[in-house]
C-alpha cells in the first residue's frame, strides 16, 4: 500500500514533554483525524513530521519520499493550514497569490482565482477586513492552488462557525475524491471528524493511544453502565477506562462485539470519538 505519511519511532523531547515513539501510516485517499486534549502533542507531531521541529525517527516519509533528504520536493506537494491566516493583514488575496506564484513551481493562478470566486473572497480586499472564517477560506484557497497531494490541517477549523466548518468539510471531501490525495487533520471538534475521518489517531500526553479506522471505533468501543458486581466480572483487557459514579460505573469497553456475545442483556451505548477521548483523559484505568 502506498502511504501519504509513514512515520516510525518518532520521538521529540522538550523540557517537561516528550512525544514518545510515535509510529503510524496514513494511506493515500484517506482522511486521518488526529485527536487529543490541549498539550497532548498534536502540533508537536505535525511540526516534527514537517521538519519544522527537529526530531528523532527511524523513518519519516511523506508521499513515499524521506523527509530528511527530500524535504524541498515534498513541500511542493503538501499544504499546511493553521487556524488563522499567517499572511500580513495589510496584504490582499491578489498579492498573496502573486507571492505564492513565486514560491510554488506548480502554482495555478486561474485555479486560485476560481477558489477566491467560489469562496466569495474579494481579490483586492485587505486581509484585515476579512472575517475569521473568510481568512481561513483564503488559507484553503492558497493551500489548494498548487495542486497539493497531502493536506495537513492543524486545528484549521477551530475558530469557525458550524456553517463555515461544513463548507470546509465539503472541500475536504472533494479533495479526497482523488485517490492520490490524503488529509491529516488535527482537531478538537470531534463531530467534524465523525463526518469525514477514515482513521482516528488518538494522542494522549505525548503517547499514541490508538490508531483505528472509524468503522473499528464504531464496532469496537461501547459504553456500559453497570454496578459493582458486573464491573468485577469484566475482564481488565476489555476495559479501556471507567468512571465511578455515586451508584454505578460507566465503563468504556474496547471489545464490544465479544462482550455483546457474553452479556447479551446489558444495554451498551455507542461510543463517539468525543466519548472515547473523555474516558481516556478523565476516566480511570484498571490496574
Amino acid at each position, binding site marked *: 500500500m502506498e502511504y501519504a505519511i509513514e512515520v516510525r519511532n518518532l520521538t521529540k523531547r522538550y523540557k517537561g514533554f516528550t512525544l514518545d515513539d510515535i509510529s503510524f501510516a496514513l494511506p493515500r485517499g484517506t482522511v486521518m483525524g488526529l485527536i487529543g486534549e490541549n498539550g497532548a502533542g498534536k502540533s508537536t507531531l505535525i511540526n516534527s513530521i514537517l521538519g519544522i521541529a527537529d526530531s528523532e525517527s527511524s523513518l519519516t516519509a511523506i508521499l513515499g519520499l524521506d523527509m530528511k533528504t527530500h524535504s524541498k520536493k515534498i513541500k511542493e506537494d503538501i499544504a499546511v493550514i*493553521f487556524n488563522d491566516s499567517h499572511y*500580513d493583514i495589510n*496584504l490582499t488575496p491578489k*498579492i498573496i497569490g502573486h*507571492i505564492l506564484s513565486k514560491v*510554488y513551481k506548480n502554482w495555478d493562478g486561474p485555479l486560485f482565482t476560481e477558489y477566491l470566486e467560489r469562496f466569495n473572497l474579494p481579490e483586492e480586499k485587505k486581509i484585515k477586513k476579512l472575517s475569521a472564517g473568510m481568512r481561513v477560506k483564503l488559507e484553503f484557497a492558497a493551500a489548494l492552488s498548487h495542486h497539493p497531494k497531502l493536506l495537513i490541517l492543524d486545528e484549521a477549523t477551530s475558530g469557525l462557525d458550524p456553517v463555515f466548518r461544513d463548507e470546509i468539510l465539503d472541500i475536504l471531501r472533494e479533495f479526497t475524491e482523488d485517490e492520490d490525495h490524503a488529509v491529516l487533520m488535527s482537531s478538537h471538534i470531534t463531530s467534524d471528524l465523525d463526518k469525514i475521518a477514515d482513521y482516528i489517531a488518538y494522542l494522549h500526553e505525548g503517547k499514541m493511544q490508538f490508531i483505528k479506522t472509524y468503522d473499528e471505533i464504531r464496532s469496537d468501543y461501547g459504553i456500559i453502565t453497570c454496578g459493582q458486581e458486573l464491573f468485577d466480572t469484566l475482564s481488565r483487557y476489555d476495559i479501556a477506562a471507567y468512571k465511578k459514579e455515586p451508584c454505578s460505573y460507566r465503563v468504556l469497553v474496547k471489545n464490544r462485539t465479544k462482550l455483546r456475545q457474553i452479556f447479551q442483556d446489558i444495554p451498551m451505548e455507542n461510543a463517539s470519538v468525543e466519548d472515547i477521548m473523555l474516558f481516556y483523559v478523565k476516566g480511570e484505568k484498571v490496574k
Partner: protein
Amino acid sequence: MKGIILKDLYENFYIKKNLASYIFGALFIGLAMIFINTYYTFILYTMFLSIIFGSAPLEASCEQDEKANFGKLQITFPLTKAEIVLSKYLLSLICTGISLLISLIYALANVYFWRLVTLREALTVWGLSICGSLVFTSVVYVCYFLLGKKIGTFIYVAAAIILAGLYGSSTVLFGIESYTSMDTAVRLWFLLPASVVIFALSCLLSIQIYKKKFS
C-alpha cells in the same frame, strides 16, 4: 527564494506605514543633500544613505512577520531554512546596491556639479560606504535573527546613533581629511574584501541561529 523576497518587498513598499517612512526618510535626506552641502555632510550623507537604507528592509519585514507569525507558515514552503535566511540577505544586497547607486550619483554630483571634492576623494568615501553598509547589515541582521524585532530595532537605531557619534568624534580626533586621504584609499583594498567576508560570516551565523530557532 523569489517568493520570500517578493513578500518582503510588498511589506516594505506596499504597506502605507512603511512606504511613508521610506518617503519621509528619502525626502529628509534629499532636501538635506541639496540645502546643507559641506565637505563634512558630503561624507555623512554618502556613507549613511547606504548604511541605513541597506538594512532597513529586514526591520519592516521582521515587524510584519512577527505580527502575523508568518515564520510558522514560511517554514512549510518548499524552501530550506538556509534559503529563507539567504533570501533576506539577498534583499539587503539589492537595497544596499540601490542606495549605493544613489550615493554614487550624489558623490559624482559633488565632483562634477558642486565641485566640492575630487573624483578620488568621492570614490574613497563611496568605497568606505560599501564597507560600512556591509558590516552594519551584518551586525544588525544577526541581532534581528537572534533577538527578534523589538531588540533588533533597538540595536539598529542604537548602532546608527553610535556610528554617527563615531563619525563626529573621528573628525575631531583624526581630522575630516582622514576619510578621503590616500592612505584610506589604499586601505580600501583590504577593507572591501574584509567586509564581504564579514557579510558572508554573518549570513552563515544567521542560518545557524534560524535553524536553532526552528529545531
